[in-house]
C-alpha cells in the first residue's frame, strides 16, 4: 500500500521546519540587502539568485551535523579573463564589514555561519555574455526577486517560479540561457555551472510527477542520511541527480516514486555494477560528470544498499494491510515515518466506533445526556 497520508506526515518530519525556513529566508534576505547597500560593490554586481536544494525544495531538516545550506549566486561583471580569485577576493572587505568573525573562504565560495544550523554560501560568478546579462537584468528586478513557495496543500508552487519559467520560455524561443562560470580557488580556474538549468529542470520534472518528485528526492536523501549513511558518497546534488535520472514521470504518490526510482537505479546501472565501474551522468546544461567526484567503490557499495532498499519498498507497497505496509516503510525510513496504528484496523462486529455494527435493539444515542 502506498499510504499517502503517512508519507505526508513523514515529510513534515524531514523537511526543514517552519522555524528553519523562516530563519533561512531571513538569512538570505539579510545578505542580499547588505549587498545591495554596499556602494563599493555596486558597480560590479549584476544580479543574484538562490540556488541549491533550498531553492529546488529538495533539502532536509537542518541539524548541527547536517546544516541547512543557503546558496546565493552573485552574478558579477568580472570578466572570465581575469584570475578567478579576483571574483572571490572582491567580497572580502564586504564580508569583513558585515559578517566579521563569521565567514571563511571555501573552494568556490564564501561560507557565512549564520547560526549553528544555517550557513550561507556566497558564490560569485564571472561576467556572462551580453545576451545573458540582458536576460538577468530583465527578469531579476534588483533584490526583490521572490523565491517560489511550494503550496503543499495544492502540491504545486504557490506562485510562478519566475526564474524557472523564464529559462523554460527562453528555451521555447530557441535561445538557451548560458551556463555561468564560478571560480575555483585552488585550481585557479573558472568552472562552468548551470544552476538555472538545474532549477528549471527540477520544476519541470516535479510538474511531470504531479508534485511528488521533490518529495521522492527528500525521502531518498533521508534514507541515506538517517538509515544508510555508508558509503559517504553519493550524497547531496549527485544523489539528487541520480534520483532525477531514474525516477519515472506521472507518479501517483511518493511511495510509488521511491520504489520505482530504486528499481530503475538497479536496472539502469546493472551493467556498470557488474563491470565494477560507475556510470557517467551529465549535468543539466553543462558537460560535467555529476558523479565525477564519487569514488567507484562508494558507488558500488551504494548500489548494493539500493538493492536492499528496493526490496523493502516493493514489499511495503505489496503489503495487504495498512499496519503491515506502514511497518515496512518505517523499516526503510526509520522513526521519522509515523507509527503504524495499534490494531489492524479491522473492527469486529462488536466494536462500536468507526464501523458498522449490527443493530441489537433500538438505537440508543451515545452520551445519554439530554437537556
Amino acid at each position, binding site marked *: 500500500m502506498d499510504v499517502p497520508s503517512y508519507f505526508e506526515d513523514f515529510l513534515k518530519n524531514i523537511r526543514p*521546519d517552519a522555524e528553519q525556513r523562516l530563519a533561512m529566508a531571513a538569512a538570505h534576505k539579510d545578505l542580499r540587502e547588505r549587498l545591495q547597500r554596499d556602494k563599493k560593490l555596486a558597480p560590479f554586481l549584476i544580479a543574484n539568485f538562490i540556488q541549491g536544494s533550498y531553492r529546488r525544495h529538495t533539502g532536509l531538516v537542518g541539524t548541527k551535523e547536517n546544516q541547512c545550506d543557503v546558496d546565493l549566486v552573485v552574478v558579477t561583471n568580472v570578466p572570465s579573463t581575469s584570475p578567478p580569485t579576483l571574483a572571490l577576493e572582491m567580497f572580502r572587505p564586504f564580508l569583513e564589514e558585515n559578517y566579521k568573525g563569521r565567514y571563511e573562504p571555501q573552494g568556490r565560495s564564501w561560507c557565512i555561519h549564520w547560526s549553528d544550523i544555517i550557513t550561507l554560501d556566497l558564490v560569485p560568478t564571472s561576467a556572462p555574455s551580453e545576451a545573458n546579462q540582458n536576460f538577468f537584468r530583465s527578469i531579476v528586478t534588483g533584490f526583490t526577486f521572490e523565491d517560489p513557495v511550494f503550496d503543499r496543500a495544492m502540491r504545486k508552487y504557490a506562485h510562478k517560479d519566475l526564474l524557472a519559467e523564464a529559462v523554460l520560455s527562453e528555451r521555447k524561443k530557441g535561445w538557451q540561457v548560458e551556463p555561468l562560470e564560478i571560480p575555483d580557488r585552488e585550481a585557479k580556474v573558472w568552472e562552468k555551472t548551470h544552476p538555472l538549468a538545474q532549477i528549471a529542470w527540477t520544476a519541470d520534472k516535479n510538474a511531470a510527477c504531479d508534485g511528488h518528485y521533490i518529495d521522492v528526492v527528500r525521502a531518498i536523501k533521508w534514507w541515506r542520511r538517517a538509515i544508510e549513511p555508508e558509503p559517504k558518497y553519493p550524497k547531496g546534488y549527485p544523489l539528487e541527480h541520480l534520483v532525477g535520472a531514474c525516477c519515472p514521470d506521472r507518479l501517483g504518490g511518493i511511495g510509488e516514486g521511491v520504489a520505482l526510482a530504486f528499481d530503475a537505479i538497479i536496472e539502469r546501472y546493472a551493467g556498470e555494477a557488474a563491470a565494477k565501474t560507475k556510470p557517467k551522468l551529465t549535468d543539466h546544461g553543462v558537460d560535467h560528470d555529476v558523479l565525477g567526484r564519487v569514488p567507484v567503490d562508494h558507488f558500488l557499495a551504494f548500489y548494493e544498499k539500493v538493492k536492499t532498499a528496493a526490496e523493502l519498498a516493493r514489499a511495503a507497497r505489496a503489503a495487504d494491510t495498512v499496519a503491515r505496509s506502514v511497518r515496512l516503510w518505517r523499516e526503510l525510513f526509520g522513526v521519522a515515518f*509515523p507509527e503504524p496504528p495499534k490494531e489492524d484496523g479491522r473492527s469486529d462486529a462488536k466494536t462500536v466506533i*468507526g464501523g458498522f*455494527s449490527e443493530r441489537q435493539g433500538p*438505537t440508543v444515542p451515545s452520551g445519554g445526556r439530554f437537556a
Partner: protein
Amino acid sequence: MPDPSPESAPEVLRVARRAIEYVPSLRLVQDLAPARRGSVWTLCIEVTALHSSEHVPSTTRWWMHIDARYPWGTIEVYPAKDGGITETFPHQDLNTEGEKGEPWRTGDICVREPSFAIGRRGFDRDPLGRPERLRWYFERIASWVEAAATGGLARTGDPFELPQFKTAPGIVGFQSEEADVALFDATPWRSGTAGFAVLRTEPLQLALTGLLTTSGAVIRDCVWGERVRQAKQHVAGIWLRTNSIPILGPYRAPRTWGELRRLLAGDGTDLDQTLKTALRPLRGRGPLFGLLGFPIPKTFGGGGTQMHWQAFRLPKIASGEVYMKGFRRKHQDSYWLRDRGTVFRDNDSIQWLRSENWSAAELGTRGQLPPSVVEARFVVIGGGSVGAPLSELLVRGGVRRISIVDGDKYHAGNGVRHTLLLDDIEAFKAPSVAARLNRISPLVEAKSITAFIPDLKREEWDEIQQSDIIVDCTGEDDAIAALGEAKCEVPRWFWSVSLSLGAKRVYVFSARGEDFPSQAFFSRVGPWIEKDRLEHAGVVMPWEGTGCWHSVVPGRAEEITVMVAAALRYLCDTRAMNLSAPNLAVFERQVKDGLFAGVARVDDAW
C-alpha cells in the same frame, strides 16, 4: 499568508485523517488546509463508488470542513464545485453553487443523522469526542455516495423527509390530519383562497385560519386556541394543490416559478391559469401569501398520511391603476398579464416560507400527558405558587381547555415562585395566568374567573360545571369546604395539591364524585398538618417585607416545582388507572447528609 500546509493542523486530526487508508474507495485529493473563515480545517477527498447513476458519477469529490476543536465540534461534508455532484439528494442540504471563490457547494450531506440507516442496520451515532471520529465519517461518506448512486438514500420504510425549500425567515402554522388527504382528494377544487391570522410581524408568524374556494365556501377550517382567535391582524392568500411531492432531480425543491410551472404541468395543472383565477378576488388586498399543498407519507414509499402545505410569500401583484398597458383597462387579463411578465416569470424565485403542521399530535411529539388528561377540560382553582406552575405543566403537556379561578393580585414578591412576569405586577392573577397559558401553544383555550371560590356567582359556578377535572391549588380549607358543598350535576374528578410549610411535603389528593369529599380530605390530611405544626413549633415565619406586618409562607421556586411536578405526575397516573376512591399521597423532599436526595412517598397507604 501563513504557510498553508497540513503541518500546522493539530496532531490528533493529522493522525485521524490517516484512517483514510482504511477506506479503499476514498482518496486524499488535497490535504488539510485552514479555511478562510477560520477555526475550520478543510480536506478534499475523492470517492470512487461501485455504482454510478445519472447524477452521481463514478468518482466524486467532496470537501470536508472539520472544526479545529476536533474531535469535538461539527464536521460538514460538501460537494466540490469541481468534480462534485450538482443535484440535491435526500439527506442533503440544498445543494446550490455556493460562495464565489470557494471550491465547495452548499449541499452538506447529512451523514450524521440517525435517520440515515443502511440496510436495516442501525448506525451508532457520531462518535463525538473520540479521536477516530474522522474514520466514522469517511465510511459514512462512502456509504452515502453508494446509496445516492443506487437510489438507496430514501428507501421504502425510512422516515419520510421533505425536500429542503430555500426559505426566508418566518413561520406559517397550519393544521393537517390524516383525514385531510381524503378530504381534498374528494373535492374537485385544486386552488382557492386562504386566510391567515398574524401572530407576529417580525419575524413573521402566521396561522392558517381556513382554506376556501375562490367563491368563499369553506373547505377546511382550522380551529385554534385563544391566541390565534384574538389576533387583530389578518392577511389573505391563495392555496393550490398537487398530487405529488414537488421534487426536481433526485430530491430538490423547486426554486423558481418556471420550475414549479413545469412540475405542475406534469401533474396536469396549469399554474398560470390557477394563479390567474386564485388571485382575482385578492387584488389590492395588501401583502399576500400562498400555500402549495401535497400529500406526504410517514415513510418513503408509503401512502399519503397528511397534507403538507408549503408556504410562500406572493410577490406584489398588479391592482388598481397598475396593469398591462395596451390591454383593456383594469381587466383581469391586463392585471394577470402584467404579473406574468414581471413577477411570475420563469426565472423569478419563489419566496418560500417555513411552514409547519401545528396539529396537537405534531406539536406534541416530544411528549404529552396521557390522553385521559389531555382531553379533559380543566378548572384550576388558585393561580398562585402551586396553581400557576401546575397549569403551565398541564398546558405544556398538551391540555387545551383550562380555566383559572383566583381573586388575588400578583405582587413582586410572588416572583420567587411563580410563572408570571414583571408586566403582571399588581394585575389579577387569574387573567394574567390565563393569558400566559394562551401564549404557550396555538391550540390552548385558557379562560379565567377573577373571584375566590367561596364567593362565586351563579353564572361563574355554572361555567365551572363545564369541566372534567377540578384541581384545588388554594391551600385554603375554606375552598375545600366550598367545593364540598356545591353539588355538581355530573360526577367528575377532583384533585387537590397543597404544600406543607417550606414546601417540605406535598399533599396530593384525588377522588371522583359529584362533589369534593371534604370530610375524607380533612381526616386524611389532618395528622400531617399536626405533624408539620410540631416540627415547626417556635419557628418564626419571614415577614413580607420591611414595613409590612404580615408574614409570608416561605418556599422557593425549585423546591415548589419539584413537589408540584411530582404531584402532577402522581395525579396523572391515578387518572390513567381510574382510581376513583378518595386517596391521599404525601411526598416529601429527602435530604441525606446535607445533600438533596430526591422526593419520596411517605404516607402509610404506600
